């Protein structure tokens, strides 16, 4: 089978990979790279469990042909979130507030949370937080504790910023 070679920055590290160009990015992440934290829930971009950051934008990796992702692209998966202070704070608050139940949607959900809190001037109102997570389906929690966790993390992070400024 015809393959392509790509060099990406995955979770902060340069990785060179070979794969058939039409292989789903999700499969390259899970199978070729062995990063099993990213999950497949529906395979059609509806549930958000396979969300990752591609050049800082949250995308559903099941809908992307890996060959489309050019050399030099920056990919962050759940395994890479904890390398950042924002990711760590979100993880801490998810655990503290009881935001994870079965946990299968959580890697994708955290990617959505991370994209929101690291975005430009994030609106952390309840409605805006709900909208920011509307592409990620959770069947266990009813979302209340997820929103609570992101809100608390956003709150802590913005106070940290103030501390840094002073």
């Amino acid at each position: 089978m015809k393959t392509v070679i790509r060099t990406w920055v995955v979770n902060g590290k340069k990785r060179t990979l070979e794969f058939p160009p039409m292989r789903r990015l999700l499969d390259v992440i899970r199978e070729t790279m062995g990063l099993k934290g990213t999950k497949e829930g529906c395979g059609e971009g509806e549930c958000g469990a396979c969300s990752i950051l591609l050049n800082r934008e949250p995308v559903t990796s099941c809908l992307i042909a890996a060959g489309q992702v050019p050399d030099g692209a920056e990919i962050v998966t759940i395994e890479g979130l904890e390398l950042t202070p924002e990711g760590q704070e979100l993880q801490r608050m998810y655990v503290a507030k009881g935001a994870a139940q079965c946990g299968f949607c959580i890697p994708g959900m955290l990617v959505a949370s991370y994209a929101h809190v690291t975005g430009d001037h994030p609106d952390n109102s309840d409605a805006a937080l709900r909208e920011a997570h509307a592409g990620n389906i959770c069947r266990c929690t009813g979302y209340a504790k997820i929103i609570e966790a992101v809100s608390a993390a956003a709150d802590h992070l913005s106070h940290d910023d103030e501390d840094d400024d002073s």
Partner: protein
Amino acid sequence: MSASVSSTYRNVGKGLPRRDGEEKVRGLAAYADDIPVPDGWYGAIVRSPVSRGRLKKLHFDPAFDWNRVCVVTPEDIPGENVVDMVGRDMPFLAYDWIQFKGEPLALVAAPTRALAREAAAHIKPEIEEAPSILTLREVVDQFHRDPKELHQMVAQTISKGSLEQGFAEADIVVEGEYWSGHQEQLYIEPQGMVAFPEADGGVFIQGSLQCPYYVAPELIVTLNLPLEKIRVKQTAVGGGFGGKEDFPTLIAGYCALLAMKCQKPVKIIFDRNQDILYTTKRHPSWIRHRTGLKRDGSITAMKVDFILDGGAYTTLSPVVLYRGILHSTLGYKCPNVFVDGHCYRTNTFPNGAFRGFGAPQAIWALESHIEVCAHKLGMAPEEFRLKNALRLGDSTATGQIIAEAMGTPAVLENTLAHSNFVEKQKRNSRGNPAHDVWYGVGVSFFAHGAGFTGDGESRLKAKAAIDLELLDDGEPGINIRISSTEMGQGTFTIMPQIAADGLSVAMERVRCPQPDTKYVPDSGPTVASRTTMIVGSTVFDAARKLKAQLESYASATFFGNAPTELTNGTFKNSYTSDTLPFARVAKQLIEEKGPQRVYHQFQLPASLKWDQKTFKGDSYPSYSWGCNVAEVEVNPLTLEIKVTRITSTWDIGRVINPVLAKGQIEGGLTQALGYAVMEKMGIKNGVFDANRMQTYVVPTAMDVPEMDIHFVEYPYTHTALGAKGVGEVAMDGLAPCIANAVEAATGVRLTEIPITPEKLLEKLQATASSAI
């Protein structure tokens, strides 16, 4: 009893963070598709293209190279070709009659998923098609014409007093018919299983499942292996909701049959489309109520016809029907009751377990109908419910006396107060054309039988073991050995809370590993809201036994036989007040006598009496109670329905972990919100029409309203722990609450869920035209 124990609680009652939280937020939890399977093959399933017929032959395409793959047909099944569940009517692979579209006919394994699927596509069944019955509508039409023409899977009645007398005493009689459709569990992790062939001829099965001791014993006759040679271990489970209760036996069987034939590990992970098309759903229901009422608001007679669509094979349908009919009049006083329950076959995928297990259907009808009764009497809905709610000393339809204090009517009173229901009712629009937004508020009140139906727990004899041994850090601690699974609800957190308090040691010294039938006794399945109530109590009592053993050892070995007590990890000589840490005593005991295992078996109170034939007596060990008040806004132009706020109160007995318990309620209410207004699944050409996430729409973060949740604690007095069930009661009562609120908003009642703008439009137009 509970007062003396409660003083020893240091962990029970606290909202401690979940044990598996960190691995889950770091993406490290290993689900079925994440475990390494070296040299593994992939399984695929050849399915029937017709809904009913006789299988003549399987044609294997001669152009395909069959040497590259492994095929299992009925002839390859080592034992009986039967799924050994409640009923024994379902074959593992159909060989004569086919009863539903998608029924498995043969299995294929290959080194890649693509090759396995390709091979499966080259096996063509030759089938003589026969007439089929596909929908509950057809069943109910036939039921009205001549029920004898239907294939009945199970029937059961409940009878109390005399209906004749009850209707004779009634001033008015109110009738109503209520329909509910299929509901998909939609756990986010699809079904997945791996079977590894073992050197001794046995098989080791790992995967996403709720009940290891369903899978292993149910495969004995099919695999022709003794129980010891069928080892089942749970991986991390990405949601179950009943969907991984009965179905995993099937997918485990497919993997095991293939693995035993090809002597390779075989893995099957469903994609979402397969998972929706070919796994169990909630049973659709048709329920007809006929109720006799007196002008003073009392209920004199309740007659209920209760029909479930079982799908093609029995699976767990009898048990679902029993729970359904038992909940069909539950919560209210009535001296004369007759419930006539039937489950009929349709030629569709067998329906199975789903959170609530018949109760959500029953309560959907009951709490809609109770509202209609109140209206017919001209009584306020809360007034009618308060008047008729079961109270201490009252009896249920089976004659069970409410013998201990429970959350009835406390949950109702509490919710009415917190929601300000009586005031809010004054704002109800009732379809007023002058209102820009139609507002409505509704209420529902209900109970859920906690634990197995009747004396099921006596027959099951749930066991728990506690192992005192050296943990991975080389220090003594305990491992809880139970077959109860963690699927998000918090088993692996609450069990250590309970065991630590039973033993009175630090929770850090307590582990609850993933269930593996090689190491754990049968604590029963993780179903029926029984894990905390029954298994939790059994773990607690086992821990108390170990505590007594340790105290006696410490007394004899270190304290000259002085009375000794272990409290918060410290042994104390009650004569001298000398102390020793838990680790010191436990380590010496393990060095001297080896690791210690303590068993305990759950026992129902001897006073519980149940007759499974007549359905008379104590139908459940106890009851959890719930009450919702839902507020809705309906757009008069688009008829879009928005649930804006839910206020609710719950009696789940003693709350072991309030954060996890609240998480169960929030999640259950959200699934119930979907059931009420979003999750629509019909049958088209014999299969589910909403067969992808794009078409089967469930609530997102933007659909879920603010939820104001309260608990009132009425502990179950038979156990020291006092917990009752929480998992299912949250799913039970929201649909009728929303229907009641929608009626308050629009002035019309919908009697079929899900309630959609389309159905609302039809009903409003029909009402308007009949008014002209």
